[in-house]
């Protein structure tokens, strides 16, 4: 009994240390994803902490998690959708490219660049929310299978969504 208590305490201690470290490294990305899903600014931080608290509980119970980053996104996705449904819809941000004009850029090049970015933004607007979500998670370094798990769809659907989305962006980026 004593040995069990010590083992449990040791596991708790290890889980705390590990989760604190993961939390420091990953909280920004998870919070960004929640905000992206449409969770309000004042709730996103709180929900992010909830994600990592759940991670702590899971690890403390001795459950092995193969990819903690993907796991965190999946829990954030589920929590985010619950909170978001009472708040607002998925964000799509209208670009203000003037903020990115660099004095060193020639006027012509800048104009072309801005046009390209506007086309990209317009093309993104035409994509489905699922396609945009796949693109976002992919850009966060998640593998297709992990994206599928986060979104609750099949890996082949992720493949389809990404293929069409990237091909479309390539078309407009290269025009």
């Amino acid at each position, binding site marked *: 009994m004593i040995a069990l208590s010590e083992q449990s305490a040791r596991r708790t201690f290890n889980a705390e240390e590990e*989760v604190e470290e993961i939390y420091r490294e990953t909280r920004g990305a998870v919070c960004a994803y929640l905000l992206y899903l449409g969770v309000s600014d004042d709730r996103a931080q709180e929900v992010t902490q909830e994600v990592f608290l759940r991670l702590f509980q899971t690890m403390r119970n001795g459950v092995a998690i193969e990819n903690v980053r993907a796991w965190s996104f999946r829990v954030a996705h589920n929590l985010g959708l619950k909170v978001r449904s009472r708040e607002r819809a998925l964000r799509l941000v209208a670009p203000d490219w003037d903020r990115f004009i660099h004095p060193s850029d020639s006027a012509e090049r800048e104009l072309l660049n801005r046009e390209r970015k506007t086309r990209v933004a317009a093309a*993104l607007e035409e994509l*489905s929310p699922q396609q945009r979500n796949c693109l976002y998670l992919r850009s966060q370094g998640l593998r297709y299978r992990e994206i599928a798990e986060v979104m609750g769809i099949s890996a082949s659907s992720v493949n389809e969504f990404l293929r069409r989305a990237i091909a479309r962006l390539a078309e407009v980026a290269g025009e």
Partner: protein
Amino acid sequence: MNKTEHLTVDDLILFMDREVDGGSSAKVEQHLLNCTDCAKRLRSLKSGSDAYVEYRDEVLEPALHVPTVGWARLGQQFNKEKRQRWGWGWAVACACGLGLAFVYLQLPKQPNAQEVLTQAAAVPEQATGSLVLTSGNERLFRPAVLEAGNPEARFRHVRALFVDAHYSWEKPLSARSFADWRRSLPQKDDSVSFVGDSGNRKFYRVQTRTEAGILRSAALTLEIDTYHPTKAEFAFQGEEPLEIAEQKEPSRNGLQKSQTTPPVTPKAVETPATPDDELRVFMALDAMGAEAAEPIDVKLDEEQHSVLVTGMGIEAARRKEIEITMAGLPHTIVQLSGGQPLEGDAGSATAGSNDGMADESLAFRQSLQDRYGGARPLEAATDKALDASNGLFARSHLLFLLAREFPPGVEAGLTAKGGASLLSLRQRHVDAIDGALRHLKEELSPLLTEAVAGEATKNANWQSGAEDLFTAARNLDRLVSRLLAGRYTEEAGNTMLKQLPNELAKVETLLRAESATNSR
């Protein structure tokens, strides 16, 4: 694959995203070296991908206002959570607190990776003993230290990976080897954590991750007291994770295994596998979700000693999930291989490389958009239709496997419980196919003219119609994928539009026959 057979957009994107296995990746790379067209298309896709990252960095994330301050330490939350969990008794809470304090005092302060490795490298290394290498289903044994020279054939591939990564293959379980590799990296990210085993041993786990080279992550586990390395874990790009550990005496307590997957090895089988064993496999697959069965085959081996679960092109995480699930089932051998199969069937080719099609394809796509009332509704409907079609195909595949493995004679020989389970499983597949078909028709309705299902005839038994239903579902899936997500000429598009109601009707007719047979 040669120069005249261009890569599909799918191949290129999977290659770009490193979602193909090592062998296929090498083939694509070889093709790209010889084919300027495909190399150009890859660059174009990369520019599309970069454009998104640019948008995310410059527009999306700045607008999200991710907070950089105001983050509470989780420790307070942990304590609160622990208080809630242990709130049933002050005495217990105190005991746990004392226990934690005890453990805390027992554990050393956390050093950094450099400190641990420097200390460990100074300790004389053992030159005897054996190592066990575990990767996926494979386990290999070798001496702890090897002389340089020609490796045995079974080690050639893994040795090549180590050589490529500049990591000592001669002494892979060594703090010095780890430190040498780590030192050679231009960029790296270290972490050190404490792990314990079920005995009283404590370990450091030093992990280094990098984006440079083929070895993306390595972790070395060392005994805290002696700095003796007991385990090394390697993640080579595009490869199964590899673990190298000391080969332990059976009586010696090893590092706690609860964090790792037990390797699945063929079991020695003394009694033959039964159809009930096979049915358990199907039920386990069903519980994991239909998509698991998409590229998987399940059958009794020729001698009927084992249930074989085989499949190709299954992603590593999914493979592991299936292996873990199947590990507890009797007489079951899992033989899955990874990567995405590059050689897709002709019907599913969703993009050609002929740029001349672009204008026509765009024109046809515009006509599809008109039917749906715009680009966004079309995209949304496409997503849903592809999901439904995918589900329909996967479930038909499961039904087909079930029918093939449980023909009437075998079904009759099942136990009463087994027979009931089989009926229930079959019914779930039929219901799921029915649901997926309804969703698919709904999403495709703007494209459909009169779709008249043929008259359903009762099959002699439920098994006899399953293969035809599977074939029809596969044809429909190919057609839907190509129509909604492919690039083709306007003429081909119009032909597909004409075929669509017939293909749907075929599936519907066969499904009705299946249902009618079920309801006998």
